[in-house]
């Protein structure tokens, strides 16, 4: 017989409670994982960020004589110099204006263009919709500086030495405003980021329940009314999110202004930071890094606020399988010109330009005798160095192997860590650990790569405690890459673990599986798809990345990006462009691979 007993509620003593906690937590590996990860990221992420911020208010090596203070003493000199001195116009305000102009211009143009394209591709009967949906995303897979190099190939003028641009070579003097600075940078960034708007807004349009529009139609609303009072308000959160993402990315953009601004002393905050670092003004560099970080934080706070508001719309559960498409009538052919133009300018033109530049001896001369494949596969060329074509040069293959090895290892580590972060955040019985991990892993997103690299350099260049000096080894690059990839990796890890839920793992526990068995047999196999994406996406962005390598790589750890930049510096333009094309090829192949593995992974990953 079953019988109820009287409740016996008692309050255990503190010591007993501790013992009890230990007894329970011993079987919660998420707690230990969370604690270890928190410590690791405190060292890999928080320490560099704090150290770089500290450098802004501490006397830097070499400055003690000028400041009459000991090295390491507190000083406001760098802040004053950056914000309120005769130099501040050049150091801070000028670059700040440039940065904001570029970011604002890029956001405004790419959002307007992207929304129109997203609507055309997702909601109309445009000719070749399916093809455009894929083709429009390609510019986002290419490194930004592919476009920048293509631009200089065409528009470069006599202001800078080396081989002239095509137009210059053909006798047209390209004005400076067309060759360098604000205009080309904005055009290139718009081309690069419009696909992001198409992806995010397109996704939102896709999820939108068609019944809501139909309902408005039944009540008598016209297409314009529906667009502005139903669709736009519901897509607005996605739109704003895309805009803020692009804004934050533009502020930290380094490669494009490096190629199109630096030659003519056109500085943005990130190139200014690079210049300050290379002229050993670490204090000022720290102030600039701080400025970029603050802008990133503010943008992100706005984004978080918007997201919270957007959550009110979460009920927009789109079951409506049937997608109604706006008929464009005879315009469906004409309207295709817009996406076609974007694909032409954003993909075909730059790639073709770059490719042509690698098979032409002299720029801009389109005669048969000027074409050669020597820069790819030639040997015993009459040059000082690089006497073989790129594909026959051992340095190229060494750099390629280095890239794949370093970036690959870093991507694998960050993808795995991302999944572990997701596990710890969702499973940790101590809420605080989850929240701290969530925030820490997102921190690198706010720090421009170049500032992060600088911080890594100052932290890990010399041996500290048990960790030996890492500068000159691949380890510093791997660590920096892992840290920089954590925002994306952790977000996708958390998203994947949320989707998995607790129960499959709990069922395995009940069936008798310990932690390792559960990870090996249940969690990782189910998460194979997301894990592959979480490894491949950082791999691609790592291959395209410039800012970390520019600071942290040395000839021994040469990667494709630094190799191509060095070739560029020595005016081996054709070879440099050939290397860039190879990078673009690897990046594109990787992206195709991701999409094979998990259909919409890219769009989903970008939005989370």
């Amino acid at each position, binding site marked *: *017989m*079953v*019988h*109820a*007993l*009287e*409740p*016996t*509620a*008692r309050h*255990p003593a503190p010591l*007993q409670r501790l*013992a*009890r906690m*230990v*007894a*329970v937590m*011993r*079987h919660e590996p998420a707690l230990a994982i969370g604690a270890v990860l928190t410590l690791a990221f405190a060292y890999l992420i928080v320490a560099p960020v704090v150290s770089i911020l500290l450098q802004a208010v501490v006397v830097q090596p070499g400055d003690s004589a000028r400041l009459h203070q000991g090295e390491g003493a507190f000083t406001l000199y760098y802040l004053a110099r950056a914000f309120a001195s005769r130099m501040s116009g050049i150091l801070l305000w000028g670059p700040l204006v440039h940065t904001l102009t570029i970011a604002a211009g890029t956001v405004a143009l790419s959002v307007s263009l992207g929304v129109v394209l997203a609507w055309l591709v997702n909601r109309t009967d445009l000719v070749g919709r399916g093809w455009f949906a894929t083709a429009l995303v390609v510019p986002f897979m290419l490194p930004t500086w592919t476009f920048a190099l293509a631009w200089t190939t065409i528009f470069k003028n006599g202001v800078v030495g080396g081989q002239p641009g095509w137009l210059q070579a053909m006798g047209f003097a390209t004005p400076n405003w067309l060759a360098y600075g604000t205009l080309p940078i904005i055009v290139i960034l718009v081309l690069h980021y419009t696909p992001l708007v198409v992806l995010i807004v397109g996704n939102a349009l896709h999820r939108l329940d068609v019944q809501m529009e139909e309902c408005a139609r039944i009540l008598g609303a016209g297409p314009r009314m529906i667009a502005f009072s139903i669709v736009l308000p519901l897509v607005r959160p996605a739109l704003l999110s895309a805009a803020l993402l692009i804004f934050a990315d533009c502020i930290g953009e380094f490669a494009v202004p490096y190629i199109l601004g630096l030659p003519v002393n056109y500085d943005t905050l990130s190139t200014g930071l690079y210049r300050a670092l290379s002229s050993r003004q670490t204090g000022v560099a720290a102030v600039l890094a701080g400025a970029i970080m603050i802008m990133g934080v503010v943008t992100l706070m706005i984004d978080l606020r918007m997201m919270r508001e957007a959550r009110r719309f979460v009920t927009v559960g789109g079951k409506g399988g049937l997608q109604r498409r706006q008929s464009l009538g005879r315009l469906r052919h004409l309207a295709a010109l817009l996406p076609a133009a974007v694909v032409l300018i954003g993909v075909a033109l730059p790639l073709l330009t770059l490719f042509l530049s690698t098979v032409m001896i002299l720029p801009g001369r389109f005669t048969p005798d000027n074409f050669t494949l020597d820069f790819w596969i030639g040997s015993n060329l009459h040059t000082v160095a690089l006497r073989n074509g790129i594909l026959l040069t051992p340095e190229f293959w060494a750099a390629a192997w280095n890239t794949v090895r370093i970036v690959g290892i870093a991507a694998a580590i960050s993808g795995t860590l991302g999944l572990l972060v997701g596990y710890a955040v969702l499973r940790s019985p101590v809420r605080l650990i989850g929240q701290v991990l969530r925030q820490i892993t997102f921190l690198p997103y706010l720090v421009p790569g170049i500032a992060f690299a600088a911080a890594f350099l100052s932290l890990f260049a010399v041996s500290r405690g048990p960790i030996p000096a890492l500068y000159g080894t691949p380890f510093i690059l791997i660590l920096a890459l892992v840290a920089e990839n954590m925002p994306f990796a952790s977000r996708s890890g958390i998203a994947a673990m949320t989707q998995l*839920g607790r*129960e*499959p793992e*709990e*069922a*395995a*526990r*009940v*069936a*008798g*599986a*310990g932690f390792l*068995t559960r990870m090996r*047999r*249940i969690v990782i*196999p*189910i998460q*194979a798809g997301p894990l592959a994406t979480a490894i491949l996406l950082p791999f691609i962005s790592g291959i395209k990345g410039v800012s970390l390598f520019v600071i942290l790589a040395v000839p021994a750890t040469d990667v494709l990006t630094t190799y191509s930049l060095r070739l560029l510096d020595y005016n081996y333009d054709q070879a440099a462009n050939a290397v860039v094309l190879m990078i673009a090829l690897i990046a594109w192949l990787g992206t195709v691979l991701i999409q094979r593995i998990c259909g919409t992974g890219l769009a989903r990953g970008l939005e989370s």
Partner: protein
Amino acid sequence: MPDILLQGLTKTYGKGAAPAVDGVSLTVPHGEFLCLLGPSGCGKTTILRMIAGIEHATGGTILMDGEAVDSVDQARFVPPERRRVGLVFQNYALWPHMTVARNVDFGLRLQNVSPAEREARCRDVMTKLKIADYAERYPAQLSGGQQQRVALARMLAINPDVLLLDEPLSNLDAALRLEMRAELRRIHETFGTTIIFVSHDQWEAMTLASTIAVMDRGRLQQVGSPDEIYARPANRFVAEFIGNPRINMVNLADTPARAGESVAAHLAARLPQAAGASVCGIRPEEIRLVPEVSGDALCVTVAGIMPTGGSWVIELAHGADRLFFSTQSRPKVKPGERIGCLLPDEALHLFDAEGRRLAIPGYGLCEAA
């Protein structure tokens, strides 16, 4: 030797929050088929998860075969993987990347059972649960009922000491529910395992369990056989929670002066012994209709007749009061008709102001038993 013993089991989520489970003490002997029954949010699933070890208690003790598997006082906690329990989740939680066969033999592989024996045991369980034909399919290719049988087979394969089921019939359609119900009873008989299941559905509880533990707001309200729970509810909550259509409750506390104007007045006049009672309940099927208004009968008007498929619920009006009467035979009365109704003494359930059952000889069913 009792199999599972809960002593003052308590679970609180976060400081200051009301406990989800509040000092529950319960003994479940070996071979028992027990249902934890209660409205959603009453803590029944939390108890199930604590027995499985997926949640840990914040107060009290769980003993299995005399060994404390979770004890706040003794600072002991045995993780689920070492408890020898089987838990079938409400949504089954099958592993989507494994075939049915792999799902079922997962636990045996962990126990290092020899391949031949593993094969034989899996085959046996799958045959008994009629899923052997789907062995090579993936969970996504199965219907809800088949998925549930796989979830069940997965746990039965490891031959657990206790089988825990979370709302075992709730996700199934009507035909499948009946089939599964029979299946669970058969499993209980053939495997002889202790089964504890959670339900918010009294039909599920009544038809399956040999013992029901009714819960509300984290506390145990009554433990007993389905019959006992129904016929002798320990308190007002149990009386009102069990039974469909719901028990008629008459508030005796605010009896108006004029007798005959309300049911309460009618009862008060007839039951001087029940002076301490504040509420009186009578089940719809215990009411008797009589053709004419006699001395003991209450004069009522037929306010409505609702057929419920094989039985009928008749709404009876007496002044502002409403009583529901249910019957298995086709009613001969018509709406608007005035008739008499009897409320037999032995069918009345009396509760005091706190809702506790008042034991007064002569009132309430099974009092003599």
